[in-house]
């Protein structure tokens, strides 16, 4: 698993949504709502996290002709990624909590 993750604000939002329910299966629309990110921002992040080994993606096991709809894809944090995600979010929270607002803003755009 690649632990050198670029912790952008949108990535942090996605991770926070996943960490909030680590054992749950999350699909794109639900993650869009919980992370408040548009689809165009969310899916590249999900793809990067999946490629980095932070997420596992599985397809819903249904017969589309019986269900009358296509199968959806679900995402879940891998067991190895969960503690690291929690740590990164905690670090980020600490940075934004302790640093003066202008410093954080400056770092975030550096």
């Amino acid at each position, binding site marked *: *698993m690649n*632990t*050198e*993750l*670029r*912790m*952008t*604000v*949108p990535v*942090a939002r996605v991770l926070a949504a996943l960490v909030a329910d680590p054992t749950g299966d999350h*699909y*794109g*629309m639900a993650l*869009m709502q919980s992370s408040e990110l*548009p*689809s*165009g*921002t969310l*899916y*590249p992040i999900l*793809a*990067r996290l999946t*490629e980095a080994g932070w997420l596992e993606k599985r397809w819903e096991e249904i017969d589309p002709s019986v269900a009358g*709809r*296509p*199968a*959806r*894809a679900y995402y879940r944090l891998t067991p*190895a990624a969960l503690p*690291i995600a929690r*740590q*990164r979010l905690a*670090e*980020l929270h600490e*940075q934004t909590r302790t640093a003066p607002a202008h410093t*954080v803003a400056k*770092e*975030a*755009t550096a």
Partner: protein
Amino acid sequence: MIKRICSTFLTAAARRWPEDLRDEMLAEWRAELHATPGNARRLRYAASLAASRPHREPAVVVRPGRNFAHAVLSLVLIAGLPMLYLQLALGWTTFRSDDTITWQAWVGAGSIVAAVVLGIICAGVTTGVTQLIRPAFVPLWTFGLMFAVFTAWPLLEGFSLNRSHVGDGFRWALSAGVLCALAGRVRRAPLSWGIVATAALVSYWSAVTRFDPYGMEVFFGGEFLPAYLFVLVTAVSIHVAVFLLVYANLLIRRHRATQAQVVTPPVAA
């Protein structure tokens, strides 16, 4: 109709993903779209994917050739499209009559929508500009270039320099550029786009320096407000400003969305 538009958006978005992921992502998006209630939400979902930056590996970001090509394309678009539009607009803005006033108003409103769409498209195909030009300088690049072309155009056509027109153009470009820079610094999207909308009007007023419906009241039963709204909607300088403002603000915001990051130290798994 909406279904077809969404399908087109998703297909366009999928084309910009790596080939091995393309079919999988398309299937996933179609399933999500199927589960999404409401046409507006479906359209927003598909449009956002279509307008997003192409998915790529974080390490593969330095492509000087592509960035230079984008900057050249940006120059051509910024300088060329508005000047082409100004020439075309002469055909429908130089006369007014009772028979034409309604469709002229519709063409004016349509031109504003077209300017927004064109701004979005042009920003989408020149994202590399902000790799060569700092986002803070994008307003200067956009409006400075437009002002230079606007000023030089009469000279190229063999006319002498009209100081009054240069002054109008300078105030237009300066006000739009300053407000565009301000909009680019604002992180909240609604506020940022609100400033952009304001900038389109302020730049117009900066150029004309008066509230005047130019006699259009005769077409609107002597009423000032509809006449003035007609003048605003059909003002080509507003159309051009909308195009450039949307273009510049999108470039700045996209750059910040992808570059804004907090680097955290690696932690062993």
